[in-house]
């Protein structure tokens, strides 16, 4: 069923009886050409592009709980492509372009809102680094703009220009960056994939892989064995747990990232602001809540909850850079499990087991990558060759020394 304004009016006048389920609740079949494990943003996007772009007819998504219940439903909704390194920037710019056409592609309003993002600059060295990055963005076909202090002040007069410990000296802006209604991304991809025949199977937990002489032939699940020609894993924070079933150790640690939302407020923040001398970034949702976050707690965790020191650290950053939010109340805090990789960049690659493919290591940058991650993973699953914007995301880059380390902090995941 197509969604549209006219449809809403029609339904409104007929008691909304016509709305059907956004997706079916099918029973798992005995065998699929491709099984995607993980009903989060990346898994559902992968299924959508497998069905729509790569014409795959036999695809299933297996989700241990409810779709969209993982990080796609617990993030700070920011999209951007302001990356520095060759291995990353083309991929994220591809993703941003997919965002720009996503709603029409999905016939689902995910509220993609290009309200702009500004990374604040507080030192000359930071300006040099952001200049290099901004140039890399432009040279890769993205947009970037260097702002001086006055320009930042014009757009955000209530930032702390008065007595900041680390004065604002400018910012690197990406106008095409912005925010998206995160839950709607999962639902939109799910509905679109389902409409093309993808089986989305919820409450179906993968408990093992069936591997016969080096080839993966299917998965054991809480709902029985399901055969597959190819199996793609896109389970973010659960990557370590899942791949252990295939006796794989990954260059990944799972960490908790907390995020926060304030009570609903009348519009005051037009875009996304990132503090350059502390852990704080913030935007305002269409409902009016200030959505903000900072840094991971810093220790391995699967608990989906964090602790006070980081809450305080993030709010200290907020008060330091934007002291007008002091009387806004923090309404909810939650934690997501981040698959922090060893160089801060993701992996989209085949494994050493035939028929088994992996997508993970998104750290806390996974949401903005959702469409491109799905698209390129679908490409890999369908063609067995890496998509040209994702060629660097190999497993063996740590062995060969081709790390993609945006932050330059080395093989310590909690620093990325």
């Amino acid at each position: 069923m197509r969604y549209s304004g006219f449809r809403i009016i029609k339904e409104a006048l007929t008691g909304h009886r016509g709305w059907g389920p956004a997706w079916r609740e099918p029973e798992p079949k005995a065998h699929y050409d491709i099984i995607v494990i993980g009903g989060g943003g990346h898994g559902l996007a992968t299924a959508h592009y497998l069905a729509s772009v790569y014409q795959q007819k036999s695809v299933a998504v297996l989700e241990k709980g409810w779709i969209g219940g993982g990080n796609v439903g617990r993030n700070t909704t920011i999209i951007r492509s302001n990356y520095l390194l060759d291995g990353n920037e083309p991929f994220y710019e591809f993703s941003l372009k997919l965002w720009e056409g996503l709603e029409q592609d999905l016939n689902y309003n995910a509220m993609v809102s290009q309200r702009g993002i500004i990374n604040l600059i507080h030192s000359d060295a930071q300006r040099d680094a952001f200049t290099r990055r901004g140039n890399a963005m432009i040279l890769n076909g993205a947009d970037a703009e260097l702002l001086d202090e006055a320009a930042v002040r014009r757009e955000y007069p209530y930032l702390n220009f008065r007595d900041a410990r680390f004065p604002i000296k400018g910012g690197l802006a990406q106008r095409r960056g912005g925010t998206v209604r995160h839950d709607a991304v999962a639902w939109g991809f799910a509905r679109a994939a389902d409409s093309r025949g993808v089986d989305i199977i919820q409450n179906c937990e993968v408990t093992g892989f069936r591997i016969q002489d080096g080839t993966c032939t299917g998965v054991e699940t809480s709902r029985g064995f399901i055969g597959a020609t190819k199996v793609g894993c896109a389970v973010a924070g659960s990557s370590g747990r899942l791949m252990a079933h295939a006796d794989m150790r990954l260059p990944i640690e799972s960490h908790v990232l907390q995020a926060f939302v304030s009570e609903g407020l009348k519009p005051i923040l037009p875009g996304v602001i990132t503090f350059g001398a502390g852990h704080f970034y913030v935007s305002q949702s269409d409902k009016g809540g200030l959505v903000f976050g900072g840094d991971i707690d810093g220790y391995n965790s699967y608990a989906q909850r964090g602790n006070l020191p980081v809450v305080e650290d993030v709010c200290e950053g907020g008060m330091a850079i934007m002291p007008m939010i002091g009387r806004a109340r923090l309404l909810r805090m939650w934690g997501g499990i981040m698959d922090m990789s060893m160089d801060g960049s993701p992996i989209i690659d085949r494994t050493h087991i035939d028929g088994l493919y992996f997508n993970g290591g998104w750290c806390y940058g996974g949401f903005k990558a959702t469409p491109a991650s799905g698209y390129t993973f679908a490409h890999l699953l369908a063609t067995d060759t890496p998509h040209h914007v994702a060629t660097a995301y190999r497993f063996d880059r740590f062995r060969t020394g081709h790390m993609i380390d945006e932050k330059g902090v080395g093989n310590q995941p909690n620093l990325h």
Partner: protein
Amino acid sequence: MIIHHPLLGPRDASEFVYLGAATLLDRPDPQTATPDDWHAYAYLRDNPAGPHRELWFHEGGDRSWLVVTRDTTTHEITDVALARDVALERRK
């Protein structure tokens, strides 16, 4: 969180800095190590959902490195030892 320091008793975790898995104590022997050994040491992790032996540095305290055994699903801490003692133990 609260970490029970072997010498100082219960201390708030915010006094500590986290490094990672305690396997970082097992640096390969440069005489015999293969590139695979170095790759595994520096880059591969068990990342278990459950008990995890990990390194914490008491930066805001006595500057001891500790090996903490903590459940990554409940955050419950079941054992804490001075990393130096653990490292010496392994040499035996």
